[in-house]
């Protein structure tokens, strides 16, 4: 062997920084420390964006010429509905990575996405129903969007239920990730079949959002949508760090983390 290459090998191996980052992210202590630094910032950005978006949406934006004031539910309903679908896709994607590479932090992130996604689905359903009362005259109509959201809620509940039903968390995470993937394959089929079923039975087809939207109404919507993404990121990381503490109760790094931390950093 060439002496030069041998010398290279004894040196610290140089790796692609991105690969290194992913490897480090798979290590629980590193993940805990790294995410702990910026999670308060995510919460801060979420708060600022939400306040700004709600101010523009609820106070500055003019009432809709067709729907009046009630359209203002849109600023929470539409971002929540978007989030509910985006989180399902991300959950299935992280579940896929967890299944293939068996990265524990990925398993934890996929599983902690499920309750957040279910919460957004619940918000989309509740606000959609409250929006329906003045526009349709009833709280519930088997409208294509509401029905899709309902099925999505059942899919989330299935993932959460399967995860909670198994005792061993890693096995449970893999099983629930597989279920999420199966659900992801089915999601477009469900979505289009429900849409098509709705037109088939000629249900009320009042669309909740107008086809053309004024910029003064669009901006708050976009700001709220971005704010909700920050909420998801912050909440997901907070939850995942707690799960790591719960699972690694007997490992030494958790003791080091909580003994080193000052009281305000623990919370």
């Amino acid at each position, binding site marked *: 062997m060439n002496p030069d290459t041998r010398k290279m090998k004894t040196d610290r191996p140089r790796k692609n920084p991105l690969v290194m980052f992913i490897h480090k992210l798979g290590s629980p202590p590193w993940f805990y420390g790294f995410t702990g630094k910026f999670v308060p910032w995510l919460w801060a950005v979420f708060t600022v964006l939400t306040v700004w978006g709600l101010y523009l949406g609820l106070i500055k934006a003019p009432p809709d010429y067709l729907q*009046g004031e*009630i359209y203002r539910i849109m600023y929470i309903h539409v971002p929540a509905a978007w989030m509910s679908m985006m989180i399902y896709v991300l959950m299935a994607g992280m579940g896929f990575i967890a299944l293939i590479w068996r990265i524990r932090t990925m398993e934890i992130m996929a599983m902690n996405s499920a309750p957040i996604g279910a919460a957004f689905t619940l918000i989309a359903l*509740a606000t959609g129903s409250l929006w329906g*009362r*003045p526009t349709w005259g009833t709280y519930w109509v088997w409208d294509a969007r509401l029905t899709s959201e309902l099925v999505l809620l059942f899919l989330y509940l299935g993932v959460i239920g399967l995860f909670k039903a198994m005792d061993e968390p890693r096995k449970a995470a893999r099983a629930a990730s597989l279920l999420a993937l199966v659900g992801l394959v089915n999601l477009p089929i469900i979505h289009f079949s429900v849409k098509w079923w709705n037109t088939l039975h000629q249900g009320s087809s009042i669309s909740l959002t107008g086809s053309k939207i004024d910029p003064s109404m669009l901006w708050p919507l976009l700001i709220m949508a971005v704010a909700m993404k920050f909420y998801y990121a912050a909440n997901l990381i*907070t939850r995942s760090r707690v799960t790591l503490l*719960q699972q690694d109760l007997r490992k030494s790094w958790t003791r080091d983390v*909580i003994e080193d931390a000052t009281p305000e950093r623990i*919370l």
Partner: protein
Amino acid sequence: MNHAPFIWASYAISTLVLLWSAVAPLISKKAAIKNIRTFNLAKEQSRDADS
């Protein structure tokens, strides 16, 4: 029809759900930290008893 109650109710429900979803992990974090402390305390005591 007065729409204000529906708008307020929507935002109230959303706030409650999002707040609960954000606070729930903090509560379990406190419990987790307590568990880690008791575990390590028990371990140290058993080590002291051995020596």
